[in-house]
C-alpha cells in the first residue's frame, strides 16, 4: 500500500491526537494531490464497479424498464443493490409499498457507513457533507477511512472525491451500456462474483489487530447464519455483533 505524502506541508502540525478525527484545514494544493491519490486508490475497484453497473443496467432492461426512468433511478439512487432488490420485486408483481420498504432496508448499510465516516468530516460545512453523502459507497468509505486513519494530514474532501467521482462515472456509464446492450452482455453470472472479491480485498486492509480480526469473524458468522432473515437485516445484526465483540476484546486487551 503506497503512502502518499502531501506536496504542501505548510500547515503547522498540531500533533495532538484529538485533531485526527476532526481534521485540520488543508491548503488547496493538497486537495489536488490527495484527489489524485484517491483516484489511484479506487482504480483497481473500478472494473468490479463497472461489472456491477453493467449487471444493473441489464437487469433494468430485463425487467422492462425504459432507459429514461432506469437512468434516472441509477443517478438518483446510485445504489445497485437497492435497484436490483427493487427489480427482483417488480418481477413478482409486488405492491409498491413493499418494494419501497424492501429496497430501502437494503440501503441500511449506508446508514452504518454514514455513521462511521461522519466524524472525519465534522469540520466541514454542512453543504459539503450533503455533497459527499451522495457519493457514499462501500469502497469509497473503506478506502477513505483507511487513508484518513493512516495519514491524518490528508485533505479529506480531496481524497474522498478522488475515490468517489471516478467510481460514479464508471458505474453510470456501465449502467448505460447495460441498458443499451441488454442481453448481449456475455457471461453475466460469472462477472457478478467480482463484487465479493473486491470486498475481500478491501476487508483484509482493516484486519490490523486481533480485536478487528475477531470482529470480522463474528460479523461474518452472524451474516452467514442470519442470511435467511429478510431484507438484509442480517447484515445490520452482523455489524452490531461484530463491532460489540471488537470493542469488548479491545477493552480486555488494553486492560482499561
Amino acid at each position, binding site marked *: 500500500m503506497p503512502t502518499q505524502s502531501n506536496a504542501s506541508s505548510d500547515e503547522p502540525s498540531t500533533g495532538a491526537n*484529538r485533531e485526527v*478525527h*476532526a481534521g485540520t484545514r488543508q491548503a488547496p494544493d493538497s486537495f489536488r494531490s490527495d484527489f489524485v491519490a484517491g483516484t489511484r486508490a479506487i482504480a483497481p475497484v473500478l*472494473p468490479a464497479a463497472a461489472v456491477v453497473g453493467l449487471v444493473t443496467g441489464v437487469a433494468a432492461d430485463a*425487467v422492462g*424498464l*425504459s432507459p429514461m426512468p432506469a437512468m*434516472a433511478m441509477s443517478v*438518483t*439512487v446510485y445504489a445497485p443493490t*437497492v*435497484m436490483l432488490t*427493487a427489480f427482483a420485486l417488480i418481477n413478482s408483481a409486488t405492491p409498491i409499498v413493499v418494494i*419501497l420498504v424492501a*429496497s*430501502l432496508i437494503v*440501503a441500511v448499510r*449506508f446508514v*452504518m*457507513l*454514514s*455513521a*462511521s465516516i*461522519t*466524524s472525519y*468530516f*465534522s469540520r466541514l460545512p*454542512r453543504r459539503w457533507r*450533503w455533497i459527499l*453523502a451522495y457519493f457514499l459507497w*462501500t469502497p469509497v*468509505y*473503506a478506502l477513505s477511512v483507511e487513508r484518513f486513519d493512516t495519514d491524518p494530514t490528508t485533505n479529506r474532501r480531496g481524497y474522498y472525491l478522488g475515490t468517489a467521482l471516478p467510481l460514479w462515472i464508471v458505474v453510470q456509464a456501465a449502467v448505460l451500456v447495460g441498458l443499451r446492450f441488454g442481453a448481449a452482455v456475455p457471461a453475466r453470472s*460469472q462477472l457478478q*462474483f*467480482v463484487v*465479493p*472479491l*473486491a*470486498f*475481500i*480485498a478491501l*476487508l*483484509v486492509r*482493516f484486519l490490523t489487530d486481533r*480485536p*478487528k480480526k475477531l*470482529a*470480522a469473524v463474528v*460479523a461474518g458468522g452472524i*451474516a*452467514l447464519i442470519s442470511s435467511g432473515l429478510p431484507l*438484509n437485516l442480517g447484515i445490520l445484526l*452482523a*455489524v452490531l455483533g*461484530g*463491532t460489540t465483540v*471488537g*470493542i469488548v476484546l*479491545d477493552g480486555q486487551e488494553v486492560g482499561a
Partner: protein
Amino acid sequence: MTPSDIGSSFVWLLVFVLGIGTYGLRLSFMHFQDSLSEVPPPIEHGLAFIPAAILAALVCAELFTLESLVTGTAINTQVIAEGLAFIVAWWTKSIPITIGVGLVARSVLLWW
C-alpha cells in the same frame, strides 16, 4: 415482462421515493455531525471496528445468497475461490491481484 406491464407513473414514483430514501439514509449521520468537533474517544474507538465488520458481513452474506441460488458443486467452488482470494488478499494486500486470482480460481474450478 414487457415495458407495457410497468406503468410509467409507477416507475417514476419508485425513482423519486427510492432516490430520496437512499440519499436520506446516506446523509443521515453526516447531516447531524454539526457542533461536535470531537468524537468522544470510546465511540471513536468503537467506530474503528465498523469497516472490518461491515465488509466481512457483506462478503459472507453474499457468499450465502449465491450458494442458495446455485446448485450442487458450484457451492463449494465459490467458497473455495473466495477462500483462495482471501489468502491471496492477506498476502499481497493488492486489490487487482485478489480479484484476478479469485476469478481465475473460480473459472478453473468450475471447468474442472
